[in-house]
């Protein structure tokens, strides 16, 4: 209130007005950041506590003694290594597949006649709105028919549609921003469509490729429901399922569970931090809802 009064009467220059506001913003921002990181910090701290220790009576920001033994133990309690291998197999196949299908489709959509393009955008947006619930039962039958049920295939096949309609749209928006004249020129020079896509199209949409890589990594790496629903054979379990196994086997060994949670979370966080720039910027440019 006092600030408002001051503005009306004195009309101070923007600089003097903003200085205290700026540090208030910084303090509030740091507080918010702390609030959002705190749960993750607790996860790490808990994972370093030796098993079987009684609960701490005071705030313990660092366990004493700290140990990494839980990280070794989880690999013995459940076949964590095999599950990790399965997760990696899924990631290294589904992400290239996603990049391929989304970029091909986005490239094509940027060049088809306007009416067809609008129809495709409408279809993708509608597909985005279909709740997962409406398809999870019946996908079971589709997977069975495709013969991928109970294999890693159920986690890879979604790459065919670009993992999510949103990623196809992101690619489309990126290609639409690229100068279409360069594609036309190459076509007049006799280059084939796949060649134009590869050597002229793709280099122009690197940020979008990066964004789709990160988004689809987070989606597939953390995918818990699909393996839970469509994979019965423990041979093909992935890391998120391993975590649930850990919880069921040792429901009160929090340090073990938290160590498992850290192992599953770490790659997702590292990828996010490395790619944060592209990731956040792409949201900025390719407004997903326009």
């Amino acid at each position: 209130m006092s600030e408002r009064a001051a503005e009306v009467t004195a009309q101070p220059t923007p600089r003097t007005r903003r200085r205290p506001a700026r540090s208030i913003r910084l303090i509030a921002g740091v507080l918010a950041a702390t609030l959002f990181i705190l749960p993750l910090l607790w996860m790490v701290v808990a994972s370093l506590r030796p098993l079987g220790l009684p609960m701490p009576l005071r705030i313990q920001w660092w366990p004493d003694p700290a140990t990494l033994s839980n990280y070794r133990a989880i690999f013995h309690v459940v076949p964590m290594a095999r599950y990790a291998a399965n997760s990696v197999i899924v990631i290294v196949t589904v992400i290239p597949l996603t990049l391929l299908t989304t970029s091909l489709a986005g490239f094509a959509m940027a060049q088809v006649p306007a009416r067809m393009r609008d129809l495709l955008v409408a279809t993708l947006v509608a597909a985005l709105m279909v709740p997962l619930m409406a398809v999870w039962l019946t996908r079971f039958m589709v997977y069975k028919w495709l013969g991928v049920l109970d294999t890693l295939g159920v986690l890879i096949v979604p790459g065919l549609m670009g993992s999510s309609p949103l990623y196809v749209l992101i690619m489309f928006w990126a290609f639409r921003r690229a100068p279409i004249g360069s594609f036309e020129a190459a076509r007049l020079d006799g280059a084939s469509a796949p060649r134009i896509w590869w050597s002229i199209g793709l280099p122009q949409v690197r940020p979008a490729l990066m964004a789709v890589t990160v988004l689809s990594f987070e989606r597939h790496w953390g995918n818990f429901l699909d393996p839970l629903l469509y994979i019965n054979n423990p041979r093909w379990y992935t890391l998120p399922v391993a975590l649930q196994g850990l919880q069921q086997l040792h429901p009160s060994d929090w340090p073990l569970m938290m160590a498992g949670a850290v192992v599953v979370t770490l790659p997702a966080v590292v990828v996010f931090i490395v790619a944060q720039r592209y990731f956040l910027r792409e949201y900025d440019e390719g407004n997903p809802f326009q």
Partner: protein
Amino acid sequence: MMLSPVLLGLTLLIIVPALMTIPLAFTRYDALSSPEWLGLGNFREMLHDGMFFNGLRASLVYVLLAVPIRLLGALLLALLLHRPGRGRTFIRGAIYLPTVVPDIAYALLWLYIFNPLFSPLNVFLPLFGGRGSTPAGWLLNGTSAQVAIAIVLFWTLGEGFVLLMATLQDIPRAMLESAAIDGASRWQVLTRITLPMLAPMLLLIIFRDTIRSFQANFVATVILTNGGPYYATSYLPFWIWQNAIDYQRFGYAAAMTLVLFAVTVVAIALQFVVVRRWRTGYFE
């Protein structure tokens, strides 16, 4: 040609399964014998299924609770942090971080935070005088368990936050400054300029969040409460899941899925009508 993989994938994984749900809803199907036509039987059964209404009510309460607090949180954080400044990259990244944590790890983390014995929140017990309902016991009571699930999912508001921040950065700075020079208070600038310009994005976030919220709490529910205590968190998706997976009643599950879908559509339509009225009233 270049579109064919995506179109094939969309057809196989979204269009066909979504359409298949419709006829399935009118049958009895256990995935072993072939489906048996029931007509409206499944829907008639639903009318007498207390668990169905319990789940529907819990889901609606959850959406009414989670969507507004997530939106408000994302909006406040975006307003606070959209301008460039010291430490912004770190702060924005930190706020987004819980959103990238895999669902299951995230749920286990909160199970740890809410567990009565080893909860890191227990150190705050003396602040409450050691009495009353402490966070660590929240999962043991129906109402507080519902609140707890909503709190857990509040932390994953990263997407709305980033989208709102991007929209705020697109608002021409000169517009805000000239309003301030004309003597508009900060509150007036916010309500007369910033919020109306944000309105389309706010609306889209509300729509998207509503659709997702009906199912977003599924993993958290399975891990944190398993539908309890006393079915307080047996949200509709959870009950559908139990019918399909545990009871092998795919037809009934499909029928409930259709109802859930219809409820979602009605919720979106209602929001649309309300917002349209608000906007037209606003510009008059």
